[in-house]
């Protein structure tokens, strides 16, 4: 006989953990956003940030290729950018 799921472990527990992770991340984002007025640099202090390699997506081609591989092989996509359609692989 097939045991479909261990409901206690597989469904409820992750949901509970899921909520904790969600709220923790949201709180961190809100906390950082509210304290951001005091963060940052003056325009003449952007020497390092202005470098190409300090861009958040410093190699768009690598990102595009990686997104395509992981979209095809895993059940998650997007997050950094849109994870929409465009491929019949999943």
């Amino acid at each position, binding site marked *: *006989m*097939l045991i479909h799921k261990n409901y206690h472990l597989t469904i409820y527990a992750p949901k509970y953990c899921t909520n904790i992770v969600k709220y923790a*991340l949201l709180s961190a984002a809100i906390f950082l956003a509210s304290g951001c007025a005091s963060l*940052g640099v003056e325009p003449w202090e952007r020497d390092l940030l202005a470098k190409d390699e300090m861009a958040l997506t410093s*190699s*768009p081609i690598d990102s595009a290729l990686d997104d395509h591989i992981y979209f095809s092989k895993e*059940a*998650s996509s997007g997050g950094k950018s*849109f994870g929409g359609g465009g491929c*019949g692989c999943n």
Partner: protein
Amino acid sequence: MQLKKKKPPVNLKAALTIAASALLGTIPKTVVAAENTTKSKKALKDSSWDFESALLFYSESDRVSAAEAILNGQKTFENDEVLNLKLTVDVLTGASANGAAAQPNVQTFTRPSGKGSYQTQVNETPLDDTFKDTRVQFNAQWTQPLAENYTGSAGVHISKEYDYLSLGINGNLAYDFNQKNSTFSVGLSYFQDTFEPEGGIPLAFASMPAAFGSTIDNSDKKADFNASRRTDSDDKSTADIMFGFTQVINRRMIMQFNYSYSKVDGYLNDPFKVLSLVDSTGIAQDYVYENRPDSRLKQSLYAQTKYHFEQNIIDVSYRYMWDDWELDSHTIDSKLRVPLSRQSYIEPHFRFYKQSAAQFYQPFLVELNTLPEFASADYRIGEMRAYTLGIKYGTTLSDGNNLSFRLEYYRQDPTDAGHKALGALSEVDLYESVNAIIAQVTYSF
């Protein structure tokens, strides 16, 4: 022979610039006039197209191999308007797990087209070796300042495979504040995909019909095959909304946070995937086509930070994704860029991924049990961990162009989410690992 004028070397950038401009119907007069003259360099500089090209090979041991080529062109106009055009071509070939469980005997499966069959040896994971596809994709993106501190962007996407068409549009609005140290952005995207798989779309949980050949009269078998199909094509739509927040922390550090909400509706099955229907001893009696819900609601939170040390730059990101299929995942991605000289660097890369199984994931079905509403044995929606370990080397050439090489190892370890393996199934590997090598060359000019 000696009198024959030597051909000038082909200037790839010049050729591509003219091609890209011709596509837009905006060949600058200077470029036309300056072609093959000494002024061409200046004209090209004025037209300011930057190109980036890449060739990637992806190869799984005993399974799928793919080659993907990208050519990306970007032009910055006056007033900071940016046009980006991207062409992607990829070729896929090899074998892919068809969802059926390994068995202590040889198994025979019908090819998706119904014409012919393939066999899987004892104790081996069944792989459908008919995969062969070529995809061509085109993207165009226009970005421009809309007002002080506001930047808008809009783009289109089209990709075509032999059996798949995808059309997409997107738009994004970004607002800078706090001396451009903070940015809020909101983006929307919509995709409309049409799937026309070889052999048509099978009915949910229909038994895999016997193969038919072309040499003898197979009208009965053909009729059986057709009876297992409901239609030739189906479609799906994907609507995404994303909110982003970017913050400069200090001279060395920048952070980004995104929240994404994605709604997918329509045909979400994989028409090539089946489940083994086993008896109480774990021996497959039949193979039935999978059935997934016709909608999926995905959400994700993403955080990324980059920090510039004295020389090195570290890039770390984390993504948490969850959906209404009760599947969730954690992804950690990290890169460390280490300069070797003024012209070159190496960049080690580590990625860890972990996902739980979709609620309806089942490695096999049991004959005596009632058929569930939804079921799929596709390991890609089962419980899994995956690791990527890679290294990139980049260098600036004497002409100022950039060349880089990337080599990565990717491993997927599907795991048991608590499904009891019956009889013979406890003797076989139901969760076989997948190993892949990724190799890439990138050239910017």
